[in-house]
């Protein structure tokens, strides 16, 4: 739809945010070059982007009141599918990654159908159960998944030339830019959805399903799209994770931690703000690795937890939500 184009959405972001956003974007693009040859920092950047992608994908259905407690399901499906496709069928990891993401999107659509009319906590519990069921399936379907041993030796993403960049700055650079591309795509899709009729419909579904349906909104369809797109990118994050670590097992791919993490990151950054979840992921992951672990090597998780509790108590709109409100930026669609 013409009036929902991402370009226009960007143009309506207040000046200061546009420049801060462009600055952060440039930094993200140049990070591997700035920090070279410290591969560890590139790796940290990649993981931030992967978790940012997971958190950002969690945020889309959350716009419609669909609070998922089981995003590990999509992450794990993406990880396993990409691993199996590239290991067993020798597909190129790039193709495997895309196919795995599409499969995870299909899982999102199926989840929307199965959850049906469930709302609120009932939906959350259903997604939690879905992730657990998939974990158990991955654990016991040994002929396919090798069970608890997990799949090892997954091929990494073949380095892209990028004008000798990968050669000069190490093999991690390809992972980094793949993650950056996926996160950017997710953010553009979300910006577009927020400006499109679907964005209004999502908010309407969150605030009152009965009223929305009486106005002609097909609730099931809205949920299918939201969870399908969310599954696509969460599955992409999982697939990328598998190719980065070259290994996947049920306990890590479907771990409860991966379901809770995007929720915490999105709350921290601000789940109502477009870039809130990714921002939360960046602050928490980088903050934990670079600040908390240096300050208190033995008790960094205390600091992590404390930071999350403080934000949730005092800035219920999240850190970016608070910043945006203070700076008088645009809050949600007009």
């Amino acid at each position, binding site marked *: 739809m013409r009036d929902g184009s991402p370009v226009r959405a960007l143009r309506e972001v207040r000046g200061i945010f546009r420049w801060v956003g462009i600055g952060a974007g440039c930094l993200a693009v140049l990070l591997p070059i700035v920090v070279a040859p410290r591969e560890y920092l590139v790796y940290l950047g990649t993981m931030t982007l992967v978790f940012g992608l997971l958190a950002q994908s969690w945020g889309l259905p959350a716009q419609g009141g669909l609070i998922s407690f089981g995003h590990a399901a999509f992450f794990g499906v993406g990880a396993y599918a990409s691993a199996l496709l590239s290991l067993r069928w020798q597909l190129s990891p790039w193709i495997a990654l895309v196919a795995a993401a599409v499969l995870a999107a299909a899982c999102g659509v199926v989840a929307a159908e199965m959850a049906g009319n469930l709302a609120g906590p009932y939906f959350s519990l259903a997604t939690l159960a879905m992730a657990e069921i998939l974990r158990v399936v991955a654990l016991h379907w040994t002929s396919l998944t090798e069970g608890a041993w997990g799949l090892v030796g997954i091929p990494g993403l073949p380095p892209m030339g990028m004008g000798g960049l990968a050669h000069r700055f190490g093999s991690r650079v390809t992972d980094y830019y793949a993650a950056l591309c996926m996160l950017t795509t997710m953010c553009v899709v979300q910006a577009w959805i927020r400006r499109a009729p679907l964005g209004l419909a999502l908010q309407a579904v969150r605030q009152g399903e009965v009223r929305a349906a009486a*106005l002609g909104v097909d609730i099931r369809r809205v949920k299918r799209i939201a969870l399908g797109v969310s599954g696509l990118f969460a599955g992409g994050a999982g697939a990328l994770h598998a190719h980065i670590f070259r290994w996947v097992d049920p306990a890590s791919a479907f771990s409860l931690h991966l379901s809770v993490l995007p929720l915490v990151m999105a709350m921290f950054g601000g789940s109502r703000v477009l870039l809130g979840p990714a921002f939360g992921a960046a602050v928490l992951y980088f903050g934990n690795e670079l600040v908390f672990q240096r300050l208190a090597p033995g008790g960094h998780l205390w600091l992590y937890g404390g930071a999350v509790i403080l934000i949730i108590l005092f800035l219920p709109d999240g850190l970016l939500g608070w910043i945006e409100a203070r700076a008088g930026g645009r809050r949600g669609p007009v």
Partner: protein
Amino acid sequence: MALCEAIGLSRRFGGNVALQDVTLRLEPATIVALIGPNGSGKTTLFNLLAGQLRPSAGTVRWRGRDITDWPPHRRCRAGINRTFQVARPFLDLTLRENVALGLLYGRPLEAVGRCGALARAQDVLGDIGLAAKAGEAARDLSLGELKRLELAMAVATQPALLLIDEVLAGQSPIAAQEILAYLARLRAQGSAICLVDHRLQALLAVADRAVALHQGRVIAEGRPEAVTKSPVVLEAYLGEPGR
């Protein structure tokens, strides 16, 4: 062929019969007042016609087609819309966005885009006296304004049948008159309107026909003045004489 027909509609909630064997015809360009004491089944009938509830027995026909199994959004797109007794606009959205939703989703064939819908929503709000507040969040409205917003959201889809549940509650006498005049204009444009309200006099002044419900059954039907004077209706409202 009637625009909308309820044929032998019944609805039970457990052992409680909310509506029993109700048959009703709604014609274009006609305002029907649906009256009856509290708990007589008026809102349940609306829920069955607009699709929020499925009947325990009976059918709903729309332009001759059986739509009993249609979900609410499909009925809305076909031309049935309603307001809710407890006003339920989306409180975090602006008035304009609330109305635009109806334009975007209730009329899917007229693709106007989100900007077009917001502009048209402004006109709809103007018709009902809410233009000045179009950019405000719905949560800042008074009860009377919320009810008018409910009406604007329903009208935005240009429904052929409009079911209006208690829109006059909380309105000043002047606002109530304006709403009734507005409904009369919609009737002149061909809409069928079914009105439920506790302000009987105002209601009957604008209605072409009245249907009285009591304990889930139709007890009287016809010209408004005849229905209100009918002994069964008086008895339903006031109790049996001499007891």
